[in-house]
């Protein structure tokens, strides 16, 4: 009998600390499957963010470093420029990549660093208790927008970082994906594989956004989160390849 599915070698066999219905576990696994399939585990270096996924190194069987909040792409620049033959990827949330690390993200992309960025957008600060993120939807209630995010109160529009990055000539690949169905998960994996393949082929800066559920701070069941992504979040953040 052929073995058609197994635990990825790049993923440790351990218990998850993530909440039920969280998207991080799925995305961690997809990255590990891609790394296994591309045969790059022994030359891949991961950069974990500050946020719920800081403990990614408890799951990944990969050389991994933490980065200060928002600084992952700067750390990636140092790692990649000194070891261009290695595969470097950052794993960042929306607060990390699109708020406190906006400058690092834009300038790393503008330099065209040949790295892979996995941008997990759940529209909320999960680690700190569900505060408004740069990507929080208009009207979405959070710990710091208790009446719903309101642009008329100066709370800003949901930041569309991919659309901002798309104007930079040295950015090679940008795609927005979502976790909302088995089919969408396969699509996330395809995009992640593309982003890593681009780096192997020295194509330049590649970023995959993954819209990911946070049942705990969206105050929804896991199943309702997926429906909400499919029907609501995509209105603000349309899926597909931007570049």
């Amino acid at each position, binding site marked *: 009998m052929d073995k058609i599915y197994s635990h990825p070698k790049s993923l440790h066999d351990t218990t998850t600390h993530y909440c039920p219905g969280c998207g991080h576990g799925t995305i961690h696994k997809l990255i590990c499957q891609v790394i296994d399939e591309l045969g790059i585990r022994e030359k891949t270096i991961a950069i974990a963010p500050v946020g719920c996924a800081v403990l990614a190194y408890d799951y990944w069987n990969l050389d991994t470093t933490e*980065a*200060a909040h928002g600084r992952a792409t*700067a750390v990636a*620049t*140092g*790692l990649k*420029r000194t*070891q261009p033959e*290695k595969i470097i990827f950052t794993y960042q949330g929306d607060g990390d990549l699109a708020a406190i690390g906006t400058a690092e993200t834009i300038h790393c992309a503008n*330099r065209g660093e040949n790295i892979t960025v996995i941008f997990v957008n759940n529209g909320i600060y999960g680690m700190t208790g569900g505060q408004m993120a740069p990507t929080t939807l208009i009207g979405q209630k959070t710990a710091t927008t208790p009446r719903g995010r309101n642009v008329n109160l100066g709370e800003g529009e949901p930041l569309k970082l991919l659309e901002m990055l798309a104007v930079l000539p040295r950015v090679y690949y940008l795609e927005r994906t979502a976790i909302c169905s088995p089919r969408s998960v396969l699509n996330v994996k395809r995009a992640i594989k593309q982003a890593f393949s681009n780096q192997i082929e020295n194509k330049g800066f590649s970023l995959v956004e993954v819209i990911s559920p946070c049942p705990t701070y969206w105050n929804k069941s896991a199943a309702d989160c997926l429906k909400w992504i499919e029907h609501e979040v995509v209105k603000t953040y349309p899926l597909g390849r931007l570049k």
Partner: protein
Amino acid sequence: MKTKKILMTGNEAMAEAAIQAGCRFYAGYPITPQNEIPAYFANHMPEVGGVFIQAESEISAINMVFGASAAGKRAMTSSSSPGISLKQEGISYLAGCQLPGVIINVMRGGPGLGNISPSQADYFQATKGGGHGDYHMIVFAPSSVQEAFDLTVLAFDLADKYRMPAMILVDGFIGQMMEPLVVHSPQSTVHSKSRLLTKKWALTGAKNRKPNVIRSLFLAEGRLEEFNEELQNKYTRIKNKEVRFEADNIEDCDCLVVSYGIMARIVSGAIENLKKQKLNIGSLRPITLWPFPTDIIRKVAKNKKILVVEMSAGQMLEDCLLAVNGQAKVDFLGRTGGGISSEEEIIKKIKSLVGR
């Protein structure tokens, strides 16, 4: 040993020393009075296959250094006071992750934007941690272009040895002034692959070994306290082994003057002058500001006047007070914001202390 004598600014000398010490990664951001450092690297890093990046901010620069250091490479950044404030988060992470890295601070006047005149007002920030958490850097205070060169090489060695950030703390004078410099041939300095420490902890890909993880987050109960104890034990070893200072007539003098960097050069001129007037004055110049030469000062302090001279409102003064520990009266002479005590001012102050 092949050597050559050249004329260089302190800033250029530190950059050249870094290259000779095997530094192959520099990231920085423009700020006066240290701009000769990034310019030197922009010119010369490509010649040795190294990396120069002008970063979008001081914050990004120190984090690029973090990444290059995590890769096992000798890496550095430089800035001046306001920019060094921005780097504090990254320096704390280097300390917490036990990563080596060299940071040059060519100090200017503060607080805030201050001015671009030489200053020594970042002593507290450099020696007491600067960023968050219980940590230290090894802090070197050169007082000449030659010493700026030599201590930069040493900074890379000790940063690697102890896996921690090290800082070269100079004022704008040392950075900007030109002096003759004896440069050893590269073969005689540490730059050779075999002599660089093998960094088994570096992130190079988990090939034929378990993954290396660089982290400063320790959530399990008691684990962070254990880690901090390890750090403190390391700092104790450094305090025991790495204190460096220059002493002249410190045992039997009537007045001991403590000063560092460019200030110590001016003080030594004043002391020479006073010797001719038959005054018995000693000088102690800390070369490492952390670890501080506490023990030697404590040993010789009794029955003397102690004078601390700084280009600040009195920062090293506090470490001197702790070292003297009440055995003698400690006086202070300092100016701020670009003001520099002249030889005449120092002579006048010393004379007032010894009753002449």
